[in-house]
């Protein structure tokens, strides 16, 4: 741990100094402004709209951070050749990967906490203005949804580390991570769609496609599991067993991705 800490800290500092953070914060502020604007246009369900817009903003800006700050952090050392000076120190390549990932996790948690506070400020403001239309509303549900968003982003970041360990450019990592995000968010829906009875579907699915989707189901992270924004915005009940299993799934997926990334990175040849 003592070896990992300096790397984690420097990664975090590098990330927080990134100019892209300013741009992303600006986007977040604009979106929170839009939340306030749109929510006041809704005749009745103001509570629902403000909660799901605020949480969607947190999730979307977090995604931008993972894609445009996180991936750069990993690639910079390789592009600028600073990795040689790091690896010439008494530190192994797996330790380097894990240290970097811890730094990235810190960055996600810190930036997401700030964004969540902004989101809550937006919700509180709307709640004060339209108290009558917040009948179904609990903070617990919102905080839980927020925590799962953060975990989702850490999982996605772990996957991006895995891609970065074997691709040669950060652009390919970016594309692969975006594809993973899209597949991960739509997997559940696609699987449910192709498994529904053909007469309901209107077309038949070939067995090959079925197998492909099933393979993808286990290969790609099931990111839609971490999405309980809908439940949070209507204060619907979420079972604790669901939360525990999902968190465990997230942690296991992170451990798997980072271990694989470390294994691959050990054998990587630098230019």
């Amino acid at each position, binding site marked *: 741990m003592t070896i990992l800490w300096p790397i984690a800290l420097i990664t975090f500092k590098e990330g927080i100094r990134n100019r892209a953070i300013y741009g992303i914060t600006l986007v977040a502020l604009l979106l929170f402004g839009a939340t306030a604007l749109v929510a006041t246009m*809704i*005749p009745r369900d103001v509570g629902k709209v403000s909660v799901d817009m605020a949480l969607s903003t947190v*999730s979307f800006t977090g995604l931008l951070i993972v894609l445009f700050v996180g991936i750069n952090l990993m690639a910079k050392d390789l592009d600028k050749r600073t990795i040689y000076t790091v690896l010439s120190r008494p530190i192994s390549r797996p330790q380097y990967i894990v240290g970097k990932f811890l730094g990235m996790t810190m960055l996600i948690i810190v930036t997401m906490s700030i964004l969540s506070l902004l989101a809550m400020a937006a919700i509180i403001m709307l709640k004060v203005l339209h108290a009558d239309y917040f009948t179904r509303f609990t903070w617990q549900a919102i905080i839980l949804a927020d925590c799962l968003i953060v975990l989702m982003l850490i999982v996605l970041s772990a996957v991006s580390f895995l891609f970065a360990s074997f691709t040669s450019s950060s652009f390919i990592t970016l594309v692969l991570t975006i594809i993973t995000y899209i597949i991960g968010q739509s997997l559940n829906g696609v699987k449910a769609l192709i498994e529904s009875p053909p007469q309901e579907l209107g077309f038949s699915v070939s067995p090959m496609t079925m197998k492909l989707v099933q393979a993808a189901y286990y290969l790609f992270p099931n990111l839609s599991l971490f999405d309980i924004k809908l439940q949070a*915005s209507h204060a619907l009940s979420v079972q604790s067993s669901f939360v525990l299993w999902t968190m465990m799934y997230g942690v296991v997926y992170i451990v798997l991705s980072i271990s694989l990334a470390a294994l691959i990175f050990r054998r990587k040849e630098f230019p």
Partner: protein
Amino acid sequence: MRSLVIVIFLFLTVALHVLSLGNAVNASRTLPKDEDRPFVLPSQMLKIVALEFRGLASDIFFLDSMVFIGGTQTRREIPRVKEWEWRWFAKTLDAATDLDPYFFDPYFYANAFLPWDAGMAEEANRILRKGSQYRDWDWMLPFFVGFNNFFFLKNDEEAAGFLMEASRRPGGDPLFASIAARLAFKENRTETAIYFLEETARNSANIGIKKRFELRIKALRSIVFLDKAVAEYKKKVGKMPATIEDLVNKKIINQLPIDPYGGRYYITQDGRVTSTASSELEPYLSSFAKEIRK
């Protein structure tokens, strides 16, 4: 000198910008549009495409339909809203409530416009039944389904069932149960209708929609009043009045009520009171008149 040239250049560019934008937007209105094809992606597809932003997508679909309704209010042509536009409106609300079946506002809009203005009571009820199933804490949605069944679809049995359901839910008026009973015995249909409308108006957050419901209540009350007068005239005089003014001439009533829709009341050949303007209530009136004449 040079800075002056730059200022003039910038000024001209801005002017050109405004000019070209205005003309492009105007000219774009002449482009052929894909009208008559109310296309909304199927919900199963939308759920996948929306990724983790289903709630947001639902909000956007609802806002879309809201903006559409707002835009039709200032139209001059008749009919104000075309048939394919209503189909698009229904599909959009259906999509919004498929993306987030717990979202209340699209249901409210479906109920406020589809049965009344679009003549799509069945479609409205299909959407509302979905809402009633998901929002199982909400008395208003089964109440709306019940009303549409009673008022537009003339299905009293189903109306009674949904009203009982509404009365059982938190916040539901126990009175709903007695209306349900009334429906079961087919009594006092008009007062029941007025009560229904009053309840809906009371729960409208949107002032515009509330006003529309109040207008309907007023129109319904006047017509009920005139219909009763016609029945009384028939009993007194022994024949149907030839014109509506006969009711005042024979002192059955003091004066004719004013039609809130701006029309004029008259008696049709089959003895029904109706107005030159309040066609919104038409589906109800024909059955009501039959009942009065019995």
